[in-house]
């Protein structure tokens, strides 16, 4: 069993009370990352409970009933402070907009989670700088979110989500405020970088093209899961090649083992050299120039 496993069993949640109560989740069960990192799209019409499910899975909202377990540990058994620490250390978040702190330059926005975790500022900023350079934002380190384009701001948000080397990244409509080509490029980068870091991705989206880029699509309606489809390996294997040929295209990306191009090693993307990165993922430092080239093409496309 993979260590970065998120398991939800029998989740229910309701907004409001009495006659005004509106069910948001009804007996939802799913497991993410059981067999390794995967990109999961959660789709459904407005009000179907997508965002609620994301918030419950991430420990932001407590379910009315049911259980969420991360690496085998029930989130409900943790104190509020522990859950907060868990969100900082094990989870990453990318939202539609407004997630970056407007007063902080890009590098400090990315370094903040590490500083909150106790890393010294110099070390945190070194790791943040490395990651931002890797995501093609080397010239933007000192820029504040208001001075960045929408695509650049989302790449900073992706860097911030990944800097703590999370086991899972939650994204809520991450391309909702972007135009199509920028959105596709950001989505490619988000999937590629997240899986490359050995983490799973859970993305809430209305957009079928965004969902088509993921290896698994969970559909919700009226708070219930109505379908849970995994894409075939064949389709997934074709992804990076498609992405390379058309960087802004909506190509499906497979799970981590199929992340690399056919015929290359399936090692995850190298991580920034920083002490806070877990030894458990030390295999991530295996270099892969071809995959980096693909990654670079995505970065170029999102500029």
């Amino acid at each position, binding site marked *: 069993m993979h260590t970065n496993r998120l398991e939800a069993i029998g989740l229910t949640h309701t907004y409001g009370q009495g006659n005004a109560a509106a069910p948001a989740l009804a007996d939802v069960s799913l497991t993410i990352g059981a067999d390794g990192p995967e990109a999961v799209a959660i789709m459904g019409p407005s009000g179907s409970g997508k965002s609620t499910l994301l918030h419950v899975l991430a420990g932001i909202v407590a379910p009315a009933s049911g259980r969420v377990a991360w690496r085998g540990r029930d989130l409900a058994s943790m104190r509020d402070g522990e859950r907060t620490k868990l969100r900082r250390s094990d989870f990453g978040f990318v939202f539609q907009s407004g997630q970056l702190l407007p007063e902080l330059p890009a590098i400090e926005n990315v370094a903040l989670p590490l500083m909150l975790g106790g890393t010294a500022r110099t070390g945190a900023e070194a790791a943040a700088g490395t990651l931002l350079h890797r995501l093609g934002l080397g010239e933007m380190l000192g820029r504040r979110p*208001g001075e960045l384009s929408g695509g650049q701001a989302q790449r900073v948000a992706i860097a911030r989500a990944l800097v703590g080397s999370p086991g899972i990244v939650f994204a809520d409509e991450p391309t909702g405020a972007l135009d199509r080509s920028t959105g596709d490029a950001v989505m490619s980068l988000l999937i590629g970088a997240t899986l490359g870091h050995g983490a799973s991705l859970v993305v809430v989206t209305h957009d079928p093209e965004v969902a088509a880029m993921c290896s698994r699509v969970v559909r919700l309606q009226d708070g219930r899961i109505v379908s849970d489809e995994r894409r075939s390996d064949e389709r997934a294997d074709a992804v990076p090649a498609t992405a390379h040929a058309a960087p802004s295209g909506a190509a499906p990306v497979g799970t981590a083992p199929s992340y690399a191009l056919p015929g290359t090693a399936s090692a995850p993307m190298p991580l920034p050299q920083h002490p806070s990165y877990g030894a458990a993922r030390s295999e991530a430092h295996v270099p892969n120039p071809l995959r980096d080239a693909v990654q670079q093409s995505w970065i170029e496309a999102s500029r």
Partner: protein
Amino acid sequence: MTALLLWVRLARATGPRATDVLSAIAFAFATAALLAVLGGVNAFQVRLDEGRVDPFDGELIVTLALVAAALLLPAVWTLAQAAVRLALARRDDRLAALRLAGATRGQVSTMAVLDAVAQALVGVVVGAMLALAVTPGIARIEFQGLPFTVAELLPPAWIWLAAGAAVLLTALGAALASLRRVHVTPLGVAQRVGQQGLSLWRIVAFAIPLGVYVAVVALDLVPVDVSFSIALIAIVVLAYSLIGPLLIQLVARIVARAARRPATLLAARRVIDDPRGAFNIVGAMSVAVMAGGFASLAPALGAADDPFAVDIATGAALTIAIAGVLGAVLAGIAQSAKVLDQQREHQAMHRMGVDMPVMQSALVRQVALPLIVGVGGAAGVALLLILPSFMLWWSSADSVVTWALLTVGAVAVTLGATAAALPLVKRVATASTAA
């Protein structure tokens, strides 16, 4: 349907919110402070008119009371601005929805202004009652060798009405200024203004009166009379308002560069982002502390029992106390408004795992930094300028100790008042946005 009718219907449908109450409280304190200060000026004027005091000293005291009132007016204005921000807080969505439904920009603006003015009206009424309630307490203070009477401290009705109208007009002006900054489109597009750059002319504008003061008063190079010296001191004190934001931004930059803790980094960056706003909270207190520093010299310069010198020291102490109360209310209200303004940021921080104490600590440091720099800088400038008379000043221990204690007390009360906004951080950060 006119904007007024629509506003009345919506107000009935939604009822008052916590921010409306806070906004009305801010207007109430602004009104009460204004009326209390005007009451003092009225009392001095009545005594002068009735010939109960020496005409020269009486006129000078009235002038000084007006100067003290002028020192406090920026705090009243800032308080009204903070109140308006609270009145308009989180109305963007509603206003945007109205624009989508076909309301014109003028109708939407009218409704927003009506929100602010309605709360100001409630605040004016409550503030007038508050001023009446504290008048017997103020009457215990002795000036010009005589205790005040309640009758002296109650100005004519037209002054009350004018003060109320001034607060309402301030609310109107602040609301219109806020709406000019926030252009409400049908899509409710929020725009973030860029970082404020502060011009270096502020240094020159402070250095010139400072240089004249040093040459004329401290070094006595040019013989001048007392009223010119007092006017010069008043100009130096008011000019501090120009250099204050620059000083705060400079120190905040140094703090941000050296910050090791996330809360300090966040607070320093927020202060750098809006140094004028940061100074506005502490500005009145800073200039009051600076003026108080000069005034504390008065008893040492006069004879031991010179009532005029004692009056100046008492007046300065009173000004610091009022500025302290206004500063404390302002800090609590302004920080509450900021927390509401930054709702999305607080929610984002909560989701990404920022501990609540870190967010709350950042909020307190956001006030503490400008408070210490602004008030500390003002006290430092005052000490520097009275350095030539330092030994003399030090010999008047009572007024020095009173000044120091009031300054420390005002700073402590302001920091305490900031704590009022802390529970709001948790409420705002943990508010669910999922659907």
